């Protein structure tokens, strides 16, 4: 068999946040055409599900790629505290410039987590609703 065996750990987190999709360089009509209901002036929110996958060697002493408590507090500090129960447009500096679509949210969260001290970040996948999900692997 070719290729060594690779193990990844997947972990899901939840946060609730509001956003509005609006590009100030577009006219009102263009914004409305491009973003539809997502352009409604006062925004709306989602219960986002964030799924991350990390890889690394499984420590024989613990059986783990990364200590879960450490991983959870890292994600809480780097992402959840800034995003949960917040407005993405108003409260997250990256979205002053960028449109807070879930595509851009994946990229922003990947950037925040990619220097994890405990394991290599492989992927960030976000479910915006039960029917929409987006994934970014840094490439």
């Amino acid at each position, binding site marked *: 068999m070719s290729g060594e065996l690779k193990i990844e750990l997947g972990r899901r987190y939840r946060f609730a946040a509001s956003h509005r999709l609006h590009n100030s360089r577009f006219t009102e009509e263009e914004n409305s055409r491009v973003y539809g209901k997502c352009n409604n002036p006062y925004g709306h929110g989602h219960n986002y599900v964030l799924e991350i996958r990390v890889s690394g060697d499984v420590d024989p*002493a613990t*059986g783990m790629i990364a200590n879960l408590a450490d991983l959870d507090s890292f994600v809480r500090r780097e992402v959840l505290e800034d995003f949960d129960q917040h407005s993405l447009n108003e409260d997250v500096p990256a979205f002053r410039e960028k449109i807070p679509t879930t595509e851009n949210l994946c990229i922003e969260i990947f950037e925040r987590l990619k220097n994890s001290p405990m394991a290599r970040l492989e992927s960030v996948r976000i479910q915006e609703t039960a029917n929409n999900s987006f994934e970014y692997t840094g490439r």
Partner: protein
Amino acid sequence: MVYLTRKIEFSASHRYDNPAFSPEENRRIFGKCNNPHGHGHNYKLEVTVAGEPDPATGMVLDLKELKEILEREVMQRMDHRHLNYEVAELQGQIPTCENIARVIWNLLEPKIKQGKLHRVRLYESPDLFADCYRNGAGGARTK
């Protein structure tokens, strides 16, 4: 290439404890998972096999056969068992999701003759899982 995924569910108990650590270290590292009498999960396993459909049958592999392999290799070994005491392949290892997924991979890979085992994903809970695959296996990153 087509990717076929079969899911099964099994229930098992386990405990995280490394005899090389002191009781305090075990407690600190493993937390509640170190509780002396263990605890259990409803594990959900997704097994993905990759291959080209056989032109005669239209199948990558016969699902009945995969079902039987999973019954024999996983269900009979792990369902309603204590992973620390009753699964020979896990002896000497902490029965984490990572280690169980690897054990399952090693049990299944030689048994799958049509197509190739592509990925084993083991959920310990809806929010925690491990994936096992061969490095360089391209193709679908099936959900």
